């Protein structure tokens, strides 16, 4: 079973969120998600400076067998995108919670943590998927 970093929030779309010190939030996809997708070959990133709406399309991750949308878990404006993924999309496979981050968003509202999962809840969620 994959290790889930304890300082992150998780969504049922298999995304993670990390609160940064400057108030922004880093977002990526979970180890479970990268493993299900397989080797990533391309990441379509949004533009820094653009706005995203909660549940709106934010990025596309493409593997050899599928292309999937990454939905914004929160509303806000994109303050940074991980440009290194353009040349090195497999960073998401090798380090989904670190170098494989996708975007950083400055939230427009307070984050509704009740809509997210703790590491423990997400682990339970994954276990139920396996059943």
């Amino acid at each position, binding site marked *: 079973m994959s290790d889930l970093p304890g300082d992150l929030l998780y969504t049922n779309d298999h995304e993670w969120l990390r609160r940064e010190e400057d108030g922004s939030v880093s977002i990526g996809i979970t180890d479970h998600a990268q493993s299900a997708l397989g080797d990533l*070959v*391309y990441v*379509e990133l949004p*533009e820094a400076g653009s706005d995203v709406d909660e549940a709106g399309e934010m990025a*596309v991750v*493409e*593997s*050899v*067998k*599928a*292309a999937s*949308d990454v939905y914004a878990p929160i509303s806000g404006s994109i303050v940074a995108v991980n440009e290194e993924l353009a040349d090195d999309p497999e960073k998401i496979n090798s380090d989904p919670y670190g170098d494989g981050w996708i975007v950083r968003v400055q939230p427009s509202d307070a984050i509704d943590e009740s809509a997210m999962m703790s590491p423990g809840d997400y682990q339970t969620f994954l276990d139920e998927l396996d059943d």
Partner: protein
Amino acid sequence: MPFIPHTEKDTSEMLQAIGVDSIADLFDEIPPELMIEHLPHVPPAVSEMEISRLMRRRARMDGSPMCFIGAGAYEHHIPTAVWDIATRGEFYSAYTPYQAEASQGTLQTIYEYQTMITELTGLDVSNASLYDGASALAEASLMSVRANRRVKSGRILLAPGVNPVYEQVALAIAGAQGLTFERLDQDAASGNVDFGKLPEGREPVAVVVQQPSFVGTLDDVDRLTDWAHEQGAFLISIVNPTALAVLRPPGQWGEAGADIAIGEGQPLGVPMSSGGPYFGFMTCKQKHVRQMPGRIVGRTSDLEDNPGFALTLQAREQHIRRSKATSNICTNQGLMVTAATIYMSLLGLDGLVGVANASHLNTTMLAYGLCGIEGVDRLYDGPFFHEVALGLDRPVAPLLTALADRDILGGFDLTSTVGRNALLVCATETKTEADIEAYVSAFADVMAADSA
């Protein structure tokens, strides 16, 4: 017996499995006013023998007139070998080559086609083809919106020389997705873009130029390409593949080259056939490839390092991305592309240059001859390729009817396109000097008869 081999029992079991009562229920979402109950203008079915007789009778009515019409479809000599090879069973019956291990021949043919089209257009990558030139403009416009993400306007600016039918098709396909098409101003003398009246600040997502233009002229594509890029727009080029044998390819236009090249592939070995089936081609810069619609064949190697071919970048396509695919209405015109690949292989570059030069020479002779007739003049100054617009001193339609009575299809009536009496004529390499003299003499006769 119907083609679909389901028994009534199969059908009812399937309906039951998905929980609906009837096949009609599957179409519930379509508003009833859009449903057509019956087709009163479609006659009842007839036997193969009857339909063959009817079609032969209709075909005889066409006769075999001498054709001087271009305007988007061009009569070229097609070596007999082209369709002899293209209709071999291995090519004729093959469809989408998803199963690479069983489709190496088809895949390699498409790969060779892509290679030749990229060489002709001077761009990096080609897809496996589209339906036709007109729908290729719609696809290129939608592709520009996806790839040129900084521009949100959805506004496409068209040079005056873009085929008006292409604009209608593009609007029909892309208009409902918020794209708008606007024309740039025309310089009356040249028929081309009026560079003194280019609009600033319109934030176009793409600028489209057709070279040679619909009315046969050659635009300053370098200047227009650079202007488009200064505006933050893509440059979409609509080009004629025969002309590319002698004109500079879109990939070399201006400082940075066109972003996307499209066009009608029919001149490459596909008969005119009353309008279709044809095929569209599309090439683009490498950096835009993921937004390109349609299939792409790539070369790869197998586990034993032997070269092989496979469909590539399929995650963009509808069987994987469903509604998010780059296009859900495009296909590759496999058989037409096979013919085009054989045509280009048989002619080679020298052969294609020969066709282009002979077509240009013949059209030059035709224009010279026709302009010697009182009441006929060039509509625009400047060079042309294998088509030229003529201004006439009287209505065009009666003249074309009189020429048709003499078994000559005299050209495309431009009157409604340009707003004055005008005719677009084309003489490809299929015409002899005697043909051209015969046409000029017939034209002089019908003009004289019309004046009498």
